[in-house]
């Protein structure tokens, strides 16, 4: 029986990361993102199966996400060393080049499993994208199997909608009496 994730506190995590500068390692936990929005996306494997385009696209849209008070985190079941090597591979050679956000290593596969995106028999993650709000509540998920890239524009659209909260639309227009009375 699959458990529902959306609308509940996001599963907790702590992972080692390779920073976007291609040099340093770090550590991230869900609690680090308290008070901010988080877009966390999973991908199968460094170097293979993945077209780096979407990972780079998120990196290049840093300013947009910054304006939306949103952090980005990429996750796969590779080691942090593999992540770092991929960041240090040039884009001409199907590498990532420097990124504006870290890549986390879910090497023991618990995070992918908790988020329901682990392909158990292969030990790699499906392409899943999750949006977690500043209170740690999972607000949105999209998961797919085949090679469908995730769109930055669509992610931004969803984020903006999630961040708007209540909207009262004006679906009424003034009658003639107001248009005449100047």
């Amino acid at each position: 029986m699959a458990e529902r994730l959306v609308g509940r506190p996001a599963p907790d995590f702590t992972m080692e990361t390779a920073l976007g500068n291609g040099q340093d390692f770090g550590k991230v936990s869900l609690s680090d993102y308290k008070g901010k929005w988080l877009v966390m996306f999973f991908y199968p494997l460094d170097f293979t199966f993945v077209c780096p385009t979407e990972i780079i696209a998120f990196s290049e849209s840093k300013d947009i996400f910054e304006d939306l008070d949103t952090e980005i985190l990429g996750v796969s079941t590779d080691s942090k060393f593999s992540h770092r090597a991929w960041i240090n591979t040039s884009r001409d050679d199907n590498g990532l080049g420097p990124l504006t956000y870290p890549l986390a290593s879910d090497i023991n596969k618990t995070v992918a499993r908790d988020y329901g995106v682990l392909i158990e028999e292969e030990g790699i993650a499906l392409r899943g994208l999750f949006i977690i709000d500043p209170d740690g509540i999972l607000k949105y998920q999209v998961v797919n199997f085949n090679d469908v890239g995730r769109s930055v524009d669509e992610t931004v659209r969803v984020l903006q909608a999630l961040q708007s909260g209540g909207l009262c639309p004006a679906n009424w227009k003034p009658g003639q009496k107001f248009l005449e009375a100047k």
Partner: protein
Amino acid sequence: MRLRSPLPAFEGVTEWVNGQATKEQLAGKPVLVHFWSVSCHMCKEGLPQILVWREHYGKPYDLQVIGVHMPRSEKDTDIAAAKAVIEEYHLEHPIMIDNAHAITDAFQNEYVPSYYLFDAEHQLRHIQAGEKGLKLVEQRLQKIMGSTNQEGQ
């Protein structure tokens, strides 16, 4: 309304409350325009925050706050009701009663609450709708204010 669009003219206003703002007065100053409606409960929840911003950004950055009361129904066009809310929430900045939707249409505004932030050159730099947007407006304020003032934050 697209980002970087110029601040629309305040034409076709039904009535100004708390005095009239003119483009001349606002020249060279950043402007925050907020839309609200008496019938919108969430809008009222955000009004105290606007007072805080005026306090916080008014002096150091010369931020000018302008309100637009956008009626969402015939009932909302009762000017006395809008004035009662303005008084209740101690709003002291100029507010346009937009019973003809002239300003609403000029901004192509569809929702309340909504916030439009213009820099000192009166270019639109941020639009935010909805009650949850308050924190983001604040962030953009800081960013834009910082860039229009050498002292920064």
